């Protein structure tokens, strides 16, 4: 891996008896990174530690090679953050607030106003930028939150559940915007519990469950699978028994079988088994692994 933008070693975070993160070792490259996990998995805690907003109870965190705990201001000057909840003064216009947050990010006042206008246009709020934020709908607020996160030209943006509370059209727009951020040369950490959103936008996946790291690898590697999916016309029991006798791992759901062999050509083995048992075949093909499959399998494994 090229120089990782985020690295953690033995990261632990506890709130009293609750272990939000346990021994998380990470190395993440530049790009669009999906931070996946159920509610309470530790995603928001990890993001806040990366920003130096929380001090971990153990371990170390580096962002662009800088310790987030020892030099949080240096890290924050290169990072933008979109929190999950609201973060707006309701009686201020979007243009004023985003311009102000640009100044907080270290941009000169003269530049901030122009930047705010450009970024609000980029997120689709050009017409509404002089309206008070308190009058914004949920979708508009999400866009404005994204605008304040990127207005100061950060190298990395941490987005905490950016699509939550959005209707399907709003979600679509937000995912498109996140995709574009990568095109603008920004790395993105996109936290979500909606696995489909991560699959559509990210090229690297960090998967957490109950504070433990389940997976940390490219999405392509997660999707790659040796499994073959077989859909049968008849009772699958004889075929399952024959496949297992040949050393296959079989997961059956009704008449659909996911079959994996450690050695040999699975298609040849399956053809032979079907010929041997006389079970009718509807379809046969490589299995497309989704994040959901991986997440459920890992969760089952850890329980």
């Amino acid at each position, binding site marked *: 891996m090229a120089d990782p933008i985020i690295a953690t070693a033995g990261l632990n975070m506890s709130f009293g008896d609750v272990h939000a993160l346990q021994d998380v070792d990470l190395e993440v490259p530049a790009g669009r990174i999906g931070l996946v996990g159920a509610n309470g998995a530790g995603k928001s805690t990890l993001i806040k530690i990366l*920003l130096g*907003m929380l001090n971990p109870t153990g371990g170390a965190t580096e962002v662009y090679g800088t310790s987030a705990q020892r030099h949080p*201001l*240096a890290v*924050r*000057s290169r*990072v*933008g*953050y979109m*929190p999950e*909840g*609201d*973060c*707006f*003064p*309701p*009686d*201020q*216009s979007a243009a*004023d607030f985003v311009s*102000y*947050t640009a*100044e*907080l*990010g*270290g*941009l*000169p*006042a003269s*530049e901030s106003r122009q*930047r705010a206008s*450009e*970024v609000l*246009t*980029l997120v689709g709020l050009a017409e509404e930028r002089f309206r*008070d934020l308190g009058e914004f709908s949920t979708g508009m607020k999400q866009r404005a939150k994204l605008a*304040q996160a*990127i207005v*100061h*030209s950060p190298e990395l943006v941490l987005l905490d559940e950016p699509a939550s509370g959005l209707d399907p059209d709003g979600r679509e727009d937000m995912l498109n915007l996140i995709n*574009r951020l990568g095109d*603008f*040369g920004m790395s993105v950490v996109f936290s979500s519990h909606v696995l489909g959103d991560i699959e559509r936008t990210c090229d690297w996946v960090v998967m957490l469950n109950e504070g433990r790291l389940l997976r940390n690898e490219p999405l392509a590697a997660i999707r790659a699978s040796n499994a073959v999916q077989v859909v049968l016309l008849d009772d699958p029991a004889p075929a399952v028994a024959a496949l297992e006798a040949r050393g296959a791992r079989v997961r059956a759901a009704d008449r659909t079988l996911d079959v994996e062999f450690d050695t040999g050509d699975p298609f040849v083995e399956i053809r032979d088994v079907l010929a041997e048992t006389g079970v009718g075949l509807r379809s046969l093909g490589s299995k497309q692994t989704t994040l959901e499959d991986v997440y459920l399998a890992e969760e089952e494994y850890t329980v």
Partner: protein
Amino acid sequence: MSSEGAIFDLDYRRYEGERTGRAKVRWAIVRDGVRKVLGLRRKARRKVLPWGLIILAVLPAIAIVGFQVFTQGLGADELLEDLIPGHADYFGFTYQLTFLFIALATPELLIPDRVSNVLTVYASRPLTLLDYLVARVGSLLMVVLAFTLIPQIVLYLGGAVLSGDLVGHLTGNLDLLWKIPTGSLAVFATQAGVAFIISAYARRRGIAAGIYIGFTIISGGVAFGLAETVNRWFAIIDLQAHASVLIAEIFGQENIAEGTALTEQGISPWVSIIAVVAIAAAASVLLYRRYRKLM
């Protein structure tokens, strides 16, 4: 005229210029605080109270200068000199308004940021908690100084113009150049600490202002009663009296502090100085501790 057209896709433009330091970031927070307090770039109803108080503080000064212009040729200068309030007297008047101004301004500086979760945005930017708090206190200091200084400047310049000897008036009253800002600082130091602490905990601006006004008024009454009946040192819990005593000392006019629990009990002005410093220090520590849990 060129026949060639060009289409520019502005898209996203990275900022490649210089970044400002923390001092500029703090200054941005100070300016934001001033705008909040004065209701600038906000709806008209947000401007009513602060600007109403500012007008109330400045109008009498303008009226006094106008009255002096009107009565200048009447030949009753000596008689009028006793009637027309001077700088110290005027301070005694604006001081009461400053108390109300601080009651309204301080919640505006702290409560919306906390209740609307804007603190999360501050916490994600390259600035410290101390930067934020110092800048917010700086915002209040700026507006309070302006609030107390503007009417004094009106009086000062009015007096200079009316005297017919501009330079003579200015050089003859040089002491006012330190007395007026020092008096303003004394008022700020006496009152802002408690106002900030109340605003650091209250969730509604109106409630914070009400608690502060109630606390200040009640503490005066309680101080008077307890100092008379239990122990004279209870007089020191009268916050407003400390400001009166300090202003009286700065301007050398004892009548400003007359009738307060502190003067009635014969407590030295030094006690007021120590009390004000102690209140400001305690308020700073409490404010920092409170916000350390939030940011």
